[in-house]
């Protein structure tokens, strides 16, 4: 059978010959446009995890939206589900969802913040002590949130606040709050023409105070005062700004007053007529009126009363309100850092860490710490443990700071092995005690080798190295278990 070639009308053939090249040119043009779109498109998807990765944990009902490009809508629905879990107390179910949501929508600032708060604060033992193993993943989640949202101050603020409040890492907090303040102004933001709210300046100032760096704190308070004054010029009746302005004035004045009272022998008023700096005031009733740091005469006592139940107590010669920090960990405890897998919030079940603090009343402190009820939190699966009892003046109440100073300048112990001077120059404060002589700070007759940073942080710290047998109450804990390793 002969081949039949179909004949098309001439105009059809002609049109085809004309249109086909046009279509090809159009395709090339579209590809060219795609090349121009790609670089800008990247910023719309910054921080997103590929759908193949995120879809691995998605139920079918949530899968369609991300496949169609609506990752954010799927993230929103998952967040609604999270909210239900929060209310029903099903906390474990929340973590994978938080992970998934932040993959789908890396700009969900609320999810980063709430998720990190949930991790750091809501997993607790029978005595409501939080599971510290979750702090590192919580920090990592916030750091990831910051990296994905450099223009949003809230996540940076939360990162700083967690370091300030939960970890007491004031250097880390300072770094985070500084980044928050440096956030570039967003014309759509509530704080425009500033990048971050006024409260960030306040907390940064408090962070400097916590580090004993009062001149820097005063600078921040002054900046806050200037800004609130400017805001009040624009809105004179704004109650919130007026309150903040008043708080700034009070804090600024209070800092100046405290520096003078604590570190200076001059300029005291009728409230504090003492001829000595408060941090070196002679003990009341003592015949010897030589200015000196206060001897807290720390006597630690650590016992195991039942297997995995610690009784921690002792003497601490201070006013009521001081808190002795207790940290019980594996000897070589390392923070767990998250990696980007779905279950990366899970913590190492073989790790043990407990952190608590015991208040001092009438020079005594004591508490039983029952770690037997939460074997998932406190597995005690390592051979040796570190028990650290410490007193850090930077975490203490103002009435004690008056005596001990921001950096523990007024703190000493008859047993010098209890004194711990933190060698980290970044931790040193900026204060100098009047009348101690020389340009360098002098303390207990010794020159402190931190000329550029002022007083190093001086605290009380005792470390025990104990074994698993001791934890299981098969062998008593004695003073011999105190180690010099700080």
């Amino acid at each position, binding site marked *: 059978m002969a081949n039949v070639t179909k004949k098309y009308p001439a105009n059809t053939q002609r*049109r*085809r010959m004309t249109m086909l090249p046009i279509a090809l040119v159009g*395709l090339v*043009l579209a590809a060219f446009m795609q090349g121009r779109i790609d670089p*800008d498109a990247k910023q719309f998807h910054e921080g997103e995890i590929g759908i193949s990765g995120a879809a691995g944990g998605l139920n079918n009902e949530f899968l369609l939206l991300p496949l*169609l*490009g609506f990752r954010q809508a799927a*993230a929103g*629905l998952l967040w*609604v589900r999270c909210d239900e879990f929060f209310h029903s107390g099903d906390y474990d179910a929340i973590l994978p969802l938080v992970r998934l949501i932040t993959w789908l929508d890396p700009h969900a600032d609320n999810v980063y913040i709430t998720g990190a708060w949930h991790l750091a604060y809501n997993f607790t033992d029978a005595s409501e002590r939080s599971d510290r193993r979750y702090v590192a993943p919580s920090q990592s989640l916030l750091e990831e949130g910051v990296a994905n949202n450099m223009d949003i101050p809230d996540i940076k603020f939360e990162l700083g606040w967690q370091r300030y409040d939960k970890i007491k890492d004031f250097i880390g907090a300072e770094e985070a709050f500084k980044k928050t303040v440096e956030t570039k102004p967003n014309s759509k933001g509530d704080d425009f023409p500033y990048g971050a709210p006024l409260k960030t300046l306040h907390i940064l100032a408090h962070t400097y105070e916590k580090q004993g760096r009062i001149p820097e704190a005063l600078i921040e308070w002054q900046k806050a005062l200037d800004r609130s004054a400017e805001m009040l010029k624009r809105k004179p009746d704004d109650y919130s700004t007026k309150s903040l302005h008043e708080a700034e004035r009070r804090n600024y004045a209070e800092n100046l007053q405290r520096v003078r009272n604590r570190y200076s022998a001059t300029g005291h008023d009728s409230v504090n007529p003492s001829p000595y700096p408060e941090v070196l005031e002679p003990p009341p009733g003592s015949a010897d009126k030589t200015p000196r740091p206060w001897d807290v005469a720390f006597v630690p006592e650590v016992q195991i009363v039942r297997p995995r139940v610690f009784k921690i107590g002792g003497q601490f010669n201070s006013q009521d309100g001081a808190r002795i920090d207790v940290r019980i960990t594996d000897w070589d405890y390392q923070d767990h850092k998250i990696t980007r897998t779905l279950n990366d919030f899970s913590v190492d079940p073989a790790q043990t860490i407990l952190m608590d603090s015991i208040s001092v009343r009438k020079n005594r402190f004591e508490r039983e710490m029952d770690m037997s009820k939460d074997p998932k939190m406190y597995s005690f699966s390592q051979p040796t443990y570190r028990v650290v009892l410490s007193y850090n003046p930077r975490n203490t109440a103002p009435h004690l700071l008056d005596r001990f100073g921001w950096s523990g300048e007024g703190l000493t112990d008859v047993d010098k092995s209890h004194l711990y001077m933190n060698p980290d120059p970044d931790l040193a404060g900026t204060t100098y005690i009047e009348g101690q002589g020389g340009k360098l700070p002098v303390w207990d007759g010794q020159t402190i080798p931190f000329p550029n940073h002022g007083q190093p942080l001086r605290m009380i710290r005792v470390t025990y190295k104990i074994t698993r047998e001791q934890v299981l109450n098969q062998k008593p804990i004695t003073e011999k278990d105190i180690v010099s390793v700080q």
Partner: protein
Amino acid sequence: MVAIAIARQTVREALRRRVFWIFLIVAVFLIGLGPVLGFLTPKESQTIMRSLGLAVILLAGLFITIVTCIYLIPVEIERRTIYTVLSKPVQRYEFVLGKFLGGFAIVFLSVAAMGAVFLALIYFQTTTVGPDQGLLRWIVSGKVPMEMVKGVVLTFFQMMLLAALTIFFSTFATPVLNFFMSFGIFMVGNLSSVTESLTTSRNGLTRTVGTIIHYMLPNFGNFNIQNAIIRPTTEITNERVFIFNNIVYAIVYSAVLLILAVIIFDRREV
């Protein structure tokens, strides 16, 4: 003018179809459900309402576009009404163009209707209506959330491109096959961030396939900017240029698909 007349007739026919109205009414109903998320914090509830609103517009737009456009040409052939049309002084390209314009108008009407409901909902959510604060004043005063308008506009152009793709397939494929092909390519085209990453793969074969898919297939993922626009604090550089490029891309690619549709339809025996 012939194409316009065909488009007008196409719109009339499409509006007579119940499935169009069902999709539209369900979509409007779903958009209206946004405020029930009031139990979340105001910021979160706004975010979720906006994201779900845009998602519903896209989903409903997707189904309306596909379901409407897959039948536009096959139905004419099946009912043999195409003979009547083509026996008149109507060129085949005019017929295809008219059908596309009709489908385009339907897409425009549906996306515009859903977009209007969506924006009205945002208005009622964010504004306390008083004697001096009406809807008109809201619009005139420039308080309309332009990010949402941009989202709706880009969805519209995304649907326009999909309509062109569906019309292209309808010149040679059955409606069922057309549905799966259009939907499939829409899904693949939505994974543009994935295909873009494949263009730099170390594996040569993957790189070649990724490059072909990324640059040759219609890239629907370009239009998905919801994540960025829903978060009011996100700042996007070159946003106008990006949106302009996307609109140009949609128009150029739709034109290419229509030309190919005309070429195929010219050679098709009906």
